Every structure is written in C-alpha cells, then in structure tokens.
C-alpha cells in the first residue's frame, strides 16, 4: 500500500508538470487556480488532519497573505519577489501567532468558533476600514519580479511553473515535517492529547507551532492568489472560503496529505462541472444546487473521503472479513471536535 501511495503522488506531480504541454490557456489557468487552493488546503490539513485542531478561520491567513501582497507593492515599479513573498508569509504567520496563542486555550467546538471569530474580525477590518478598500477591494499595481526580470510572473506559463514549484515545496516540506519528531508529536496530540501530556510533552507549544506554520502556508497561497488575479477583495477572508477549504480536505480524506490535493481538485472540478453552460445551459447559474447535492452524497457514501474509496471497494469485495478493517478505523479516528 505504501509504494502505491508514493506512486500516486509522484504520478500526480509528473502529470501537473506535463499539463501545460497538453492543455490550452483555459486549462492552464484552471489548474493554476486549483494548485493555489491545493496549497491552501494542505495548510489546513496540517491543522485538522494531522493535529486534530478544527480551524474554521483559515481564510483569514489566506486573505492576509493576499492583502499584504497588494498593500506592500509600491506605487512605482514592480517589487522583488525575494522580499515580497517572505513578507507576505510572515504577515500571515504573525496573525496566526496571535490567533493561535489566544484560541488554543479553548477546545473542540469552542476552538472552531474562536478561530471563526478571529477570521470575522479580519474580515471586518478590511471590509469596513479605508485600509482594505471596502467591499470593492483593491488592484495590484505591478506583479513582483524575480532577479531582475528573469521570471516574469505576468506570463501564465511562468506563473504556472512557479505555483507548481511552490506546491511541490509545500508538499515536500509537510511530508518531511510529519515524519519528523515534531510531526509524531502532532499525531500524538491528535490521537490523545491527555496521554501526550502525561508522557511529559508540553502540548501547547507544539500546537502553536503547527498553527503558525499552517498560517504561513495559507499566506503563501494568498500571495499566489493575489498575484494570479491581480486583485483582492474581502471575499478572500469570508467564512465561506474557510468552509470551502475545510470541505476540500474532508472530501479528499482527512489524515492524508494527498487527501488535500485530491480534495482541492475534486472540489474545483465539481464546481467547474456544475458551472458549465455547455452541460447545464440556463441552469448553470444555479450550480450551487448540484454542488450541494454532491457534497451531501459524498458524506453519505464516502465517510472516509475520496482517499478511502479504494479501501472501501476492497472491503466491499472481501465481504465479511472487511468488517474487521472497519473496526480498526474507529480506533484510529480521532476526536475531531
């Protein structure tokens, strides 16, 4: 099973690298957007899937990364990527430090709500003050450049490559992180925080570190989003977006990094499918209906997300002996709230 996972991830990244050769402009643009959301989903997976902290305010860090990109870009001339990117990631990570330090005092449903509350605060700050340009949002003056004009992020292909590089880096970093001692500690916290404390771990700093890393990654996704669209608005911090990214990782399957990847693609493709006028004609503007119904169907039929589908099929084929596997899932599953 282990080698098949590796094969899947490697194949996915090879396919992403080859995609611009096969697809037209629309396809490249769509997959760029999905990869940005995949980074965003991975950032949340670190909290929800790996640490068991259900954060309902992840869009705040995404939005702050995006707003920082636009606000830090000078009026005259393009900024260098080399300082703009770290600055935006840092801005998001700093807000995550503040939010995490306070909200990690609470647990369960309360934690969900406090993170949501902090995201709403950020939302109202950009929505109601002159800083964020109100409901209309603000435009990006100039796209950042790398080492002179070596990499022109204004070109779709160059931006595609840059986004893919970021996604690969984030995925690789998280893979290593979760295998490290730190990652093991997070897994321990997810399964049983009480027991971790009893064995002498002070769990708070671990959770806070995970929160800050996750916030920074969401900030990176926000940066990419702002550069891609050249435009930010308060929607980027809205609780709908926090909900959507949560749905991506649940849809994909919690507890697996590739679940976040699969979820981001599945969610975006579902969206595109139901939005398509070629298929649904006039009805396409009611695409939320189809999306909503398919989400409900997924919950009903795929309790372990899309990642769990192969195993579910195997279980079904094996018949009764599969029951044993089902029990083992209960043991591993964490107290998510």
């Amino acid at each position, binding site marked *: 099973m282990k080698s098949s996972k590796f094969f899947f991830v490697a194949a996915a990244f090879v396919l992403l690298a080859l995609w611009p050769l096969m697809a037209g402009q629309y396809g490249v643009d769509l997959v760029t957007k999905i990869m940005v959301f995949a980074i965003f989903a991975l950032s949340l997976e670190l909290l*929800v899937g790996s640490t068991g902290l*259900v954060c309902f305010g992840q869009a705040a860090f995404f939005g702050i990364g995006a707003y920082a990109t636009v606000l830090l870009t000078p009026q005259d001339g393009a900024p260098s990527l080399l300082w703009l990117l770290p600055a935006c990631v840092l801005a998001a990570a700093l807000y995550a430090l503040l939010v995490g330090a*306070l909200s990690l*005092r*609470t*647990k369960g*449903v*309360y934690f969900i*709500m*406090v993170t*949501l*509350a*902090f995201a*709403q*605060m950020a*939302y*109202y*700050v950009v*929505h*109601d*003050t002159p800083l964020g340009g109100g409901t209309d949002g603000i435009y990006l003056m100039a796209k950042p450049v790398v080492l002179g004009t070596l990499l022109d992020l204004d070109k779709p292909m160059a931006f595609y490559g840059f986004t893919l590089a970021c996604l690969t880096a984030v995925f690789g970093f998280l893979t290593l992180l979760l295998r490290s001692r730190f990652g093991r500690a997070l897994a321990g916290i997810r399964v049983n925080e009480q027991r971790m404390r009893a064995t002498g771990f002070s769990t708070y700093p671990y959770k806070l570190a995970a929160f800050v890393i996750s916030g920074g990654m969401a900030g990176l996704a926000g940066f990419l989003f702002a550069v891609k669209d050249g435009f930010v608005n308060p929607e980027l911090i809205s*609780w*709908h977006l926090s*909900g959507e990214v*949560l*749905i991506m990782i*649940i*849809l994909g399957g*919690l507890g697996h990094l590739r679940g976040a990847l699969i979820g981001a693609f599945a969610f975006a493709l579902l969206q595109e499918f139901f939005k398509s006028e070629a298929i649904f004609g006039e009805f396409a503007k*009611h695409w*939320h*209906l189809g*999306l*909503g*119904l*398919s*989400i*409900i169907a*997924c*919950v*009903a039929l795929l*309790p372990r997300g899309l990642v769990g589908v192969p195993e579910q099929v195997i279980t079904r084929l094996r018949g009764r002996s599969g029951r044993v596997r089902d029990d083992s899932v209960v043991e591993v*599953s964490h107290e*998510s*709230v």
Partner: protein
Amino acid sequence: MDLTTFLIQCLNALQYGLLLFLVASGLTLIFGIMGVINLAHGSFYMIGAYMAYALAPIVGGTFSGGFFATLAVGLVLAVLLGYVLEWAFFSFLYERDHLQQVLMTYGLILVFEELRSLLVGDDVHGVQAPDFLAGTLPLGELMTYPVYRLFISGVCLVLALAMYFVFTRTRLGMMIRAGSANREMVQSLGIDIKFLYRVVFAAGVAIAVFAGMIAAPVSSVYPGMGNTVLIICFVVVVIGGIGSIRGALLAALLIGVVDTFGKVLLPQASGVLVYVLMALILLVKPDGLFKAG
C-alpha cells in the same frame, strides 16, 4: 446620547436579543441534545422570512392581511420540513463525527439557497407589518416606539418562558433532558428516542422559521440572510455555553446590547465588536458562561 435615544436603543437591543435567542435556542438544543452541528439552521430562519414574503399571497393576500393565517400555515410547513429533514438527513448524522456533520449541513445550505433562488428569485423584498400592529405607541412622556417591535419582543418573551416551562416542568422536557444525558439508558426505559429526537428537531426548525417570519417586516428579506444569522447564533451559543438555554438567553441579550449600541456609538467598528466580545469571554471562561450539565 440623550435619554430618549438611549431608551429607544435599549428596546431595540432587547428586541434583537430576544429574536436572536429564539433562533439560537434551536441551534443549541439540536447540538446539546443530539450532538449535531447544524450549519443549515440559519437557512430555516431564511425560509421563514421568505415564507412571510412568498407564502402570504397564497394564504391570505398579503402578510399584513393574512398575518395569523400565514403564521399558522408557515408553522405547519416548518414542522413537516423539520420532520422530513430529520428522517432523510440528520438521523444519519448522529453517529458521524462533527466534521462530517459540518460538511453535510454545508451542502444543505447550498441546496436551500439555490432552491430559494429558483423559487422566488434573488431580489431584496420588504414585507409590511399587519395594520393592527403598525404605527407607533407613546411610551411615557419621552418617546414613541414602533408597535411591531414591541410585539416581536413580547412574542419572543412568551416563547422563551414557554420553552423554559416545557423543559423544567413537563414530562416531555424531562425525557429530552434525560435523552441528552444518556441515550441508551433512556431507550432502555422504553422511551422512543428516535421519535423524541424527531420531535425536538422539528420544534427547533419550527422556532427558527417562526422567528424568520415575524422578523421579516423589521429586517426585510434578502438572499444570504440565513448565513448572517447563523454566524451570530453560533456566537450566542458559544458565549452562552453549548446546550444551555439559560446561557443562550443571556448571551443573546448581551449581543443585542453590544450590537445595537455599537452601531450607534462606534459605527466603524460595529461589525467587529461582537467577535471581540466573544473572544474576551472565551479567554476568561473557555467553556462559555453556563456550561450545560
């Protein structure tokens, strides 16, 4: 702020707070008793408001003309809706974890919003209060106050008291409280817990729909109104302590005051104030003001 404004804002805060309590009580009941996080609860409020707009012409001409008929028909439909929803969707969610509940009820939000869009469109509508509740009433020498807002406060207060009575003094309330504490034990005592849950859920839906209907003339009817209410109701439930009706009442009134006076005194920051309040309370009491049993 002079005395008259202050008193009027106090009454506004009371009205808003009581209405919030009504919606939030269903949310906290369904969470406290069945352990289900229902994101679609705000949609029931929206459905109520749209009933006041779209159902009234069918039932009694206008909302103001056929007021009681519309309320009655709306309530019956709401109970039916709650019963069917519980049977079709929510009864499967009791055993699932909270994340899956969030996911499925988020799907329901999308479905309700789009059905609303398909059936009655995306326009903003105003709804007229009934004639006998229109106009203003002089209160003392200082001020006059809209009768309809007083009516809302009165109805909410009566419902809150009725709910309190049902919970603490009746056999049904006793079964519900017992059911929330230990499902298996109640079942083995011969009580049909499935039916009990269905009744509680239908009641929660009906209360939210009712709140939406009576709020329509004050708040107007617009797409997405359910989500706005939902988030504020979550704040109410969390500040009050999950599952606690008493806590929900206190928290709703508190938020009514903070929101209403915030809009007058600090219009720039009014959106943030409620969340600042929540963060402060949770920092001092991480489990809310009244943690239920």
